[in-house]
């Protein structure tokens, strides 16, 4: 299982599509930094193919005042959970 890490919002950058194209059926996607915007209910359709395997970093939601506004299907993890995701993955790939 590969952990893919995305730090760009789908509203501005198309890199999310590259990440999706490169993801295997068990791979996971973690949204960090400006990428957490992708967990908004209006933007999450872009990431529809990986729902259930979509994680979003709590700290980056909080600093942006987005914590209460996420789609419930995005799994919120804090930075310790981020480390734990990297423990469980064979390797990670960062998309930027």
């Amino acid at each position: 299982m590969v952990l893919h890490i995305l730090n760009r919002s789908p509203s501005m950058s198309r890199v999310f599509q590259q990440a999706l194209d490169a993801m295997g059926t068990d791979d996971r996607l973690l949204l960090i930094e400006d990428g957490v915007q992708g967990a908004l209910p209006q933007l999450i359709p872009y990431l529809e193919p990986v729902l259930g395997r979509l994680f979003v970093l709590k700290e980056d939601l909080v600093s942006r005042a987005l914590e209460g506004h996420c789609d419930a299907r995005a799994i919120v993890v804090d930075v310790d959970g981020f480390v734990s995701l990297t423990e469980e993955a064979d390797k990670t790939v960062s998309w930027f």
Partner: protein
Amino acid sequence: MQYALLVQGSPYSYQASHSALRFAQAVVRRGHSLTAVFFYHDGVYNAARLAAPPQDEPHLYDAWAQLHREHDTELLVCIAAALRRGLMDERESSRHGKAGHSLEPPFILTGLGQLIEASTAYDRLISFSP
């Protein structure tokens, strides 16, 4: 597990360095070993010894140095990326016939080969880019 990080963002323009430091602290908190942080692309600017951020902003340079002090994490800066960007230690400075230096320990100039050679020794390499 043995972790290493690759940092590619300039420190005061993009969140990459901040994210990497936050992740680094969580790695050691969870009992892992953080063997090295590699700085490449504009990430090498993290090693600028004269960085003087405002008092009420985080001091990234000091935070990296603290990581080194407390956890023996190596701070490895790609020499090819660094020299063209104006970051040189005393040795490179005298080799280039310049006065003064802009990088010093605990940041160490090193070849890209060291990242590669060592990368087989880590269990995880996580990249933070701008």
